[in-house]
């Protein structure tokens, strides 16, 4: 089914600054600022988070291992000016698509080809490549209002409500 909504943005989340950024999903938004706000509401209501990045989906190159086996990326791609690219890899179906390399290249294809060459030891079922220039990021000043309130919100399990206990007691009678 065609996507009839606003443009899509990919969302990357930094749970902890000591860990690499992870791709967590996507949101629809009319522009990067709204995408960042939507990402905060959809992905960071509860969990711990220290940073959020968004990039228009059209600027993120995704390649599965199957696609690469069928159609290897060419180093030449569509050369443009030299930029910094972030390359994300997903070691297996359980682990997240996480930042694996940051390098300079003239196109996302070239960046991926370089990453594949340099880190041939890394197995990945899925790759994602995005130019740093295409990312909109939350900044340090956003932390207090974006991420801190989540820490004070406890997720209450349904079993903790007195009503749930009461129902259990009634059923046991």
């Amino acid at each position, binding site marked *: 089914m065609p996507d009839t*909504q606003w443009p899509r943005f990919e969302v990357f989340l930094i749970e902890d600054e000591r860990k690499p950024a992870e791709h967590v999903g996507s949101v629809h938004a009319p522009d990067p600022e709204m995408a960042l706000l939507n990402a905060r*509401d*959809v992905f960071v*209501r509860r969990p711990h988070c220290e940073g959020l990045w968004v990039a228009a989906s059209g600027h993120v190159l995704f390649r599965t291992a199957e696609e690469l086996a069928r159609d290897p990326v060419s180093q030449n791609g569509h050369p443009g000016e030299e930029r910094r690219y972030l390359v994300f890899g997903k070691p297996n179906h359980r682990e997240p698509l996480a930042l694996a390399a940051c390098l300079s290249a003239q196109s996302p294809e070239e960046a991926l080809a370089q990453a594949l060459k340099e880190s041939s030891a890394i197995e990945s079922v899925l790759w994602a490549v995005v130019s740093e220039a295409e990312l909109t990021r939350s900044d340090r000043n956003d932390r207090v*209002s*974006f991420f801190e*309130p989540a820490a004070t919100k406890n997720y209450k399990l349904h079993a903790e409500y*007195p009503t749930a206990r009461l129902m259990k007691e009634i059923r046991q009678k």
Partner: protein
Amino acid sequence: MTSLPDEQTTQLVAGRLLEMADDELILSHRNSEWTGHAPILEEDIAFANIAQDEMGHALIWYELLRSLTGRDPDRLVFFREPCEYRNLQMVELPKGDWAFTVLRQYLFDTWEAGHLEALEQSRFTPVAEAAQKIGKEERYHLRHTAAWLCRLGRGTEESNSRMQAALDQLWPFHSQIWAAPPDYERLVTESLMPDLARLGSLWEDRVRTELSEAGLTPPGFGQPSAPLRDEHTEHLQPLIEEMQQVARLETEAGW
């Protein structure tokens, strides 16, 4: 200070806390009416979050009120009559279209930004601490609402005209926001609560500037005087009936 000097001051602070809590509660209820109906899925989630946040802020003020007067928040919310509510008329108006909701939230969020900052300076520590906690979340609300304001105000001809219609409808209610309850002046003198008239004039300057940047013009004259907080529009009663319906079905039920 962590306790208030005398009974009269306690009653005055409690009266103001009830107004603040009721504003948050009723706005939260109106916002929750968008759940499942917001323009797109992401906004549905975002706006439900905001509604829930406002409900949380209401609870913070009701709990503080309980610590001063012993009044139970659940009794206050579910077993008061509409005429006993002390919320602003602005927050009880029906949710209207998305433009109306965005504009009302913008007016309320900008007011709260200045109000909470001033409350952080209260000499009564529980109020200052609560304001600091609520303020973090409100900064986010304002960023979200201001983003919508500018995109709808400067979007299409239709979005602009709907925003202007919302502003025309809401503006007559705006001055009630800084109307102080009787004897409130005492709390200002003792630095327990901020000077609402001063905040009101700062707030009006700010929103006039930002509205005009968003291509909107507040109606210039003929503003009615602010009604008292015990006066309500015909829209509050059906809201309260719906909100209290389940709790009143079985008054002794626990949750």
